């Protein structure tokens, strides 16, 4: 994505799955950015090792071809090289472990969330509860979120990803998501946000999110839960704080 001449070509961020997609969706949270950075770090070592191993393999095939080398070698062991090829991978693993543990522990850092949202998985839909707010009859803000069937999609909407009621959240705000299920196992996953949290009946799982930019982020249930497992998507819409407050007021009314 190039930011030059954006006035000529409006650019859209990739926050939903695309056909033939190879890489990650664009990150919208520091957690997802950390995951992508870790992947890039590990992939660097992967490329080095892949090229090295392929080189040694091809050169061995070249040098020890029976026409070039009719008498086979009778090397059975080499202590020095065996020590080297044990220590070097350990060093590489250490270089991989450092950023990996840094990310792992940074994910566990607790920041006081401003808003708590519950996501409850049902077979074929999600229910969201904003218990921080109560309506006049003391009912918390609760709504179901069903997938929009293919026949009801409008032009430009995404098949198998759109829902009737989105999870509206304020951007640049610490959120706490509490995930559970009312029946079978589900998983609340949104790739752009770097979130995947199992919804287990009888258990409350918690994850925290900080969305860095406004946008609409798509995800899907990620734990097999019946015939409609593929038809219960998740859509998170991050808006400005003012828009969020208006939305909550409208919903409570």
């Amino acid at each position: 994505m190039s930011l030059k001449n954006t006035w000529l070509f409006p650019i859209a961020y990739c926050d939903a799955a695309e056909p033939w997609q190879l890489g990650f969706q664009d990150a919208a949270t520091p957690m997802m950015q950390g995951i992508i950075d870790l992947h890039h770090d590990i992939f660097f070592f992967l490329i080095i090792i892949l090229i090295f191993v392929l080189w040694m393999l091809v050169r061995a095939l070249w040098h020890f071809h029976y026409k070039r080398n009719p008498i086979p070698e009778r090397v059975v062991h080499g202590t020095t090289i065996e020590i080297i090829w044990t220590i070097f991978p350990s060093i590489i693993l250490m270089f991989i472990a450092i950023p990996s543990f840094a990310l792992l522990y940074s994910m566990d850092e607790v920041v006081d969330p401003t808003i708590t949202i519950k996501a409850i998985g049902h077979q074929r839909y999600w229910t969201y509860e904003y218990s921080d707010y109560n309506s006049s009859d003391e009912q918390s803000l609760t709504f179901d979120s069903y997938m929009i069937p293919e026949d009801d999609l409008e032009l430009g909407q995404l098949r198998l990803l759109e829902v009737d009621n989105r999870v509206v959240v304020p951007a640049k705000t610490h959120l706490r998501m509490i995930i559970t299920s009312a029946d079978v196992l589900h998983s609340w996953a949104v790739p752009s946000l770097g979130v995947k949290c199992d919804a287990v009946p009888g258990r409350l799982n918690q994850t925290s999110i900080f969305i860095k930019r406004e946008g609409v982020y798509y995800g899907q249930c990620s734990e097999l839960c019946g015939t409609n497992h593929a038809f219960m998507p998740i859509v998170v819409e991050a808006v400005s704080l003012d828009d969020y407050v208006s939305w909550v007021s409208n919903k409570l009314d």
Partner: protein
Amino acid sequence: MTAASKLPAHVAAQANKASPNLVKEIFYGIGLGIFGGSFWKIHHLNERRKTEEFYARLEAGEITVNNCKGLTSIHQRCGSSCALGGVSSMPH
């Protein structure tokens, strides 16, 4: 009888004369690996720079994010004469 044992001795000795240097091959392999990995590293650093540039411009208010019918697009602020308005585009 193996193929090697069918050969005259002087031919067999000459065939195995140019045995490869293992240390050189290892260094060549590591060098090539680092060369290939550097391309990936350049790609990664470029992506990180673009991302940081995007968020810096977003914070500075040079660009905005427009949520139009669920499609997020980025617009550059160009003053009151902006002709883009609510234009949005499909996710790339």
